[in-house]
């Protein structure tokens, strides 16, 4: 008889502690199954491959569920003269139609600035902006009814679409979307003017659609008292909760947001999902019926924000041997129609203008521009990738000027290695004390056989008139922490049930990155139980409140720590109990794989738990974590915004066709620092996936708007993300085996979500190298991203001009 199962208040509770003694003897084991550091598969792997893993659209719909269609603006910049939804509401099957006037609370779903109306009121700012919503028992009815609306527009000024148009509009208005910002270290202008050599240039990078395979979706279930439960495919449940409450005119406690998993996020489900959650919550509360809002791919791509396009003008002075003396950057960021997260994203672009290089004296200016396009938003790297492009172009340009190998120029400029008494200082005045980039690059240079391949590429090019190869090895240094310091906090909730099984919940969300698996490994490690004994549960605002987005690569850093704290609290209570019960010293209580030693006695975890329960010990705890030691003063653009840096490097070899500009990645070697990996298999997956996604951004993914401001690449037929054939067969990804985080992170691991994305800059640089070869090395290749066949051909033609 299991004594912890005795619920009875009477005589039935007769115990027989001697029952099944064999079962109670723990089996000595060397190792846990699924402890920290083990390459276990994603917890949902078997469910993914069988189709059992449920996404929001897979949950059975409740009877009476309404489908919600959101009608979008066909104009990019127009005043709304009239919105008449009478015929929509009168259409057969329509249950309700909501416009701006029907929002019970605040008509806004923005994360910060209050400038993202759920439904446009008096003005539309981009093609695709939501105007109103229609709910009907099926989507077809809702969509058809929406077409009956009468909306009269009067076009305002021609839409500003490009960076040039946005600059012109901003200058005319005397105002940018967000105030310009500046970072300064030393006297950059003076240093450059005094430098013996100066290079300058301009580089543009395009936007990028997230193309999460699961589109935006929310499902709202009305409750009592006007409360609502919303299943939302979101990386930021707390913010969705707040925005839904705000729209409903209700306190946050009336709204619960739940998400078990997303079919990809990549930043696109940070601020954007609030719109769909708010719309279907309003429908649900108003009608008393469950409501689902699932976007089809085209509507999703037209309605939701993307990676920011950016243009950087750079001017860099060096000493004639490639050592940088000073650098200036002017970044022009295309934000779209509203502020969303653009301020922080543009800031992060500035934070990464140095990439891994000690620039000595720097000035970075940033302008945040309004365009009549969808409001750009978070995307893996959060501005960092865009920020790094210019300094990497500058490295290649310096090498071109000096006829040096670009790798040698890069190596001359790295931040000093960890342990140096005189660490370099970032443009935001933070000492770089954990730099391992030189070590990583040296190791990769050797393992990728860089020098020999450089020679081989040269001989190939000498013998090949049409096809030209290029090679590049580039580093990544990426700052880890939310640069908005207060976001660096997390909570967790751990229950240990009296049979020893564990229920884990935390504020992080699972979008495929394996966060749930990693945090479960942390909890398993703390309790020294198999990871299969830890039940991973859906993220819900009802269990862990006030969470930050699962973003900034911080998921396992923050939530791993919070879950560890919760587990440790329970563990301490168990130790307290054992010390008292068995009269041993605290040190004599030890959690070993699958068992607990208490003095000379050994027992199973579940038996200790069962005893503690009977002794009325609380077996549930929250855990909380706040990243220590970070502080940043944006006013003076100085401080320590990052807890630590993640490092990596990649070497890419490409071939281009100088007739057509077609190009292909032939081989890539990657060495990346994840500290002490929590799960090497998941980390390798993040690295490879991030690299290929970055390659897509830099080579083929192109957003194209027509003159009227309509996005014409709004489905996979026109917007091309990499396929299996774009990945080189020869892709060698390794975790840096000497990696160990000097910062006290969870088991000394390092964040891995975003940093590998920027390893793809090696592909971009290698393409430039191939174009350089096409021009016999006479001219520096001007190349913008995405380096489509068309752009590469134009660059080839430019370097071949006499």
């Amino acid at each position, binding site marked *: 008889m299991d004594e912890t199962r005795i619920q009875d208040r009477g005589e039935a509770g007769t115990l027989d502690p001697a029952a099944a003694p064999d079962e109670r003897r723990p089996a000595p084991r060397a190792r846990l199954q699924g402890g920290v550091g083990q390459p276990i598969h994603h917890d949902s792997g078997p469910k*993914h491959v069988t*189709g059992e893993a449920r996404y929001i659209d897979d949950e059975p719909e409740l009877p009476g569920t309404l489908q919600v269609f959101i009608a979008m603006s066909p104009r990019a910049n127009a005043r709304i003269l009239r919105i008449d939804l009478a015929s929509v509401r009168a259409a057969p099957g329509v249950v309700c139609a909501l416009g701006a006037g029907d929002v019970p609370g605040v008509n806004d779903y923005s994360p910060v600035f209050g400038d993202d109306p759920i439904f446009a009121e008096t003005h539309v700012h981009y093609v695709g902006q939501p105007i109103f919503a229609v709910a009907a028992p099926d989507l077809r009815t809702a969509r058809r009814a929406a077409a009956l609306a009468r909306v009269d527009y009067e076009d305002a000024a021609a839409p500003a679409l490009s960076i040039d148009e946005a600059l012109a509009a901003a200058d005319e208005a005397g105002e940018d979307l967000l105030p310009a910002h500046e970072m300064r270290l030393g006297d950059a202008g003076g240093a450059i003017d005094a430098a013996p050599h100066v290079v300058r240039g301009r580089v543009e990078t395009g936007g990028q659609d997230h193309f999460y395979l699961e589109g935006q979706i929310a499902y709202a279930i009305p409750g009592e008292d006007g409360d609502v439960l919303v299943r939302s495919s979101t990386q930021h449940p707390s913010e969705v909760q707040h925005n839904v409450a705000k729209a409903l005119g209700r306190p946050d406690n009336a709204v619960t947001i739940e998400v078990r998993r997303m079919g*990809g996020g990549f930043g696109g489900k940070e601020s954007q999902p609030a719109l769909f959650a708010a719309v279907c919550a309003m429908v649900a509360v108003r009608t008393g019926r469950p409501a689902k809002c699932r976007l089809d791919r085209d509507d999703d791509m037209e309605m939701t924000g993307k990676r920011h396009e950016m243009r950087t003008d750079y001017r860099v002075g060096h000493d004639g041997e490639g050592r940088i003396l000073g650098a200036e950057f002017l970044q022009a960021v295309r934000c779209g129609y509203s502020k969303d997260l653009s301020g922080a994203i543009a800031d992060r672009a500035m934070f990464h203008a140095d990439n891994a290089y000690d620039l000595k004296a720097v000035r970075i200016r940033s302008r945040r521009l309004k365009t009549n396009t969808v409001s750009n938003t978070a995307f893996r790297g959060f501005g960092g990738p865009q920020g790094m492009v210019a300094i990497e172009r500058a490295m290649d340009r310096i090498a071109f000027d000096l006829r040096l190998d670009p790798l040698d120029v890069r190596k001359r400029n790295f931040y000093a290695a960890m342990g140096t008494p005189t660490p370099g200082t970032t443009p935001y005045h933070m000492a770089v004390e954990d730099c391992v980039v030189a070590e990583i690059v040296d190791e990769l240079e050797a393992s990728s056989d860089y020098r020999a391949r450089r020679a081989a590429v040269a001989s190939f090019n000498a013998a090949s008139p049409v096809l030209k190869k290029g090679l590049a090895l580039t580093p990544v240094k990426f700052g880890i922490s939310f640069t908005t310091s207060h976001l660096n906090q997390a909570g967790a909730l751990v229950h240990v049930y009296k049979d020893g099984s564990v229920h884990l919940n935390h504020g992080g969300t699972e979008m*495929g990155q394996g966060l749930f698996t990693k945090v479960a490994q942390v909890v398993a490690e703390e309790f020294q139980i198999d990871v299969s004994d830890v039940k991973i549960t859906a993220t819900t605002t009802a269990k862990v409140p006030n969470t930050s987005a699962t973003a900034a690569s911080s998921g396992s850093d923050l939530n791993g720590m919070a879950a560890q704290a919760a587990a440790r609290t329970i563990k301490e209570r168990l130790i307290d109990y054992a010390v008292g019960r068995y009269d041993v010293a605290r040190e004599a209580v030890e959690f070993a794989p699958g068992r607990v030693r208490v003095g000379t006695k050994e027992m199973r975890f579940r038996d200790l738990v069962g005893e503690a329960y009977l002794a009325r010990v609380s077996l549930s705890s929250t855990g909380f974590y706040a990243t220590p030691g970070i502080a940043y003063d944006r006013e003076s653009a100085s401080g320590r915004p990052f807890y630590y840096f993640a490092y990596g490097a990649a070497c890419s070899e490409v071939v281009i*066709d100088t007739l057509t500009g077609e190009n292909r990645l032939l081989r890539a070697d990657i060495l990346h620092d994840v500290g002490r990996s929590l799960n090497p298999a998941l980390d390798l*997956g993040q690295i490879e*996936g991030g690299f290929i996604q970055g390659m897509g951004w830099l080579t083929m993914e192109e957003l194209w708007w027509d003159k009227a401001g309509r996005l014409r690449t709004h489905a*996979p037929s*026109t917007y091309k993300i990499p396929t299996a054939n774009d990945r080189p067969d020869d*892709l060698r990804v390794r975790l840096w085996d000497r990696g160990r985080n000097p910062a006290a992170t969870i088991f000394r691991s390092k964040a891995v979500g975003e940093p590998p994305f920027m390893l793809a800059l090696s592909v971009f640089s290698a393409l430039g190298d191939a174009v350089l070869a096409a021009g016999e090395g006479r001219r520096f290749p001007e190349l913008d991203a995405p380096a489509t066949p068309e752009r590469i051909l134009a660059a080839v033609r430019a370097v071949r001009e006499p």
Partner: protein
Amino acid sequence: MMAPIRFILNGQERAVEGLAPTTTVLQYLRGTECLTGTKEGCAEGDCGACTVLVEEPDGAGGLRRRSMNACILFLPALHGRSVETVEHLASAEGLHPVQRAMVERHASQCGFCTPGFAMQLYAGWRMGALSDRQSVKDAVSGNLCRCTGYGPIVDAGLDLAGCPTPDTRGEDAARAEALTALRGAGVFRYEAGGAAWLAPSHVDELADTYAAHPAATLVAGATDVGLWVTKQHRDFETMIDVSRVHDLRHVEEGPESLFFGAAVTHAEARARLAELHPDLGEVMRRFAGCQVRNAGTVGGNIANGSPIGDLPPALIALDATLYLRQGEAVRRLPLEDYFLEYGRQDRREGEFVVAVEVPLLKPDDRFSASKISKRMDSDISAVLAAFKLGFADGRVASARLAFGGMAGTPKRAAGAEAALVGRPFDAAAVRDATEALAGDFRPLSDMRATTDYRLAAAAACLERFRLQLAGVPTRIGEVA
């Protein structure tokens, strides 16, 4: 006579009525059957998240297996066929080898694309298409994954390729028999919600059916018509399914030409064309994804008159002849004459494409085809260039330069052809032809390419042809 749609779903017979003919298989699986493992990623056949395996009798006592995109497959198209979904892969003994390999290889991250990959790899394996790494990549080039970077998926596919395929000939024969019985004889007719779906079995039945319903929409693989429904939300009163007209499914070899029946799929046509013209085989390898090539047909690619279809320019360069039929009357015309202007073809009311005849090359003919697109695989061409030059005495005796993406229709470059004929095919001739191209075409600027790039790429393809004949490597795909 009105009948339900009879098919086999995961081994169980179904008879469906009352759902509109334009209901997609994906909608049916998710909505009616609650089989939610099959996902919608794009609803246009470009991401593969909805991949299912479709089987039908192969006419030889066995089964013809094809993976298809359920998102653009209409439910009545399942009549007399069998469909297998991801839920049916694992058995009581546990995961299928492809599923096990995918878990062990860490081939899923967010998992949303994963069932589609599992089904596509499984289908490729059952179809005998998986051997080496390249074959696995080609099998999944119509499946998009945004998380993994594909490496572990391809590794899992290779693991599967190493597993012996089961001998199911006995079960296949039984299944084929059952499906033949479900299908019944004559024209299958399904009606619901005021719309009708007619599926003849013979070309004569098709001719009669179309003559009786000349306003009907012809559907073959629905890789285009499917999008008219899922993207343009159009309604159709009557649809005629030509995909089961078996006399349109033959590839016939004549002494001087090949005949492709209109309902021959791209996958089937490629198998034959790639042997004759490796270039064209490569173009067709890159033409859409596997699932679309398994469904889409030669006749469909021609009949819908798209200016960016990949086959018409290649076939025009090869001097193909189109066969059309209206009632009893058969008409033949040079393929290039079929395309009148953007959106308008020389197809009369009630007339349908029967076949296309593609002449074989003569000993002194040289042929080349190039597809230029932003992404190598499964992308719509910015430019499709196909050239056939006949040589005599070291000079160009005849030239057929055909292009897609350069005009409102697939079209020959008359000026450039004239610039080549009668001269050696050398750099000077290509230069003159390039100049002439600018007079032949004024292509659009759009999301795929600008006018200038299209002209430049078109000329580059011709230069590539010259270099190819001179033995100079010009294909990035061939670089190690």
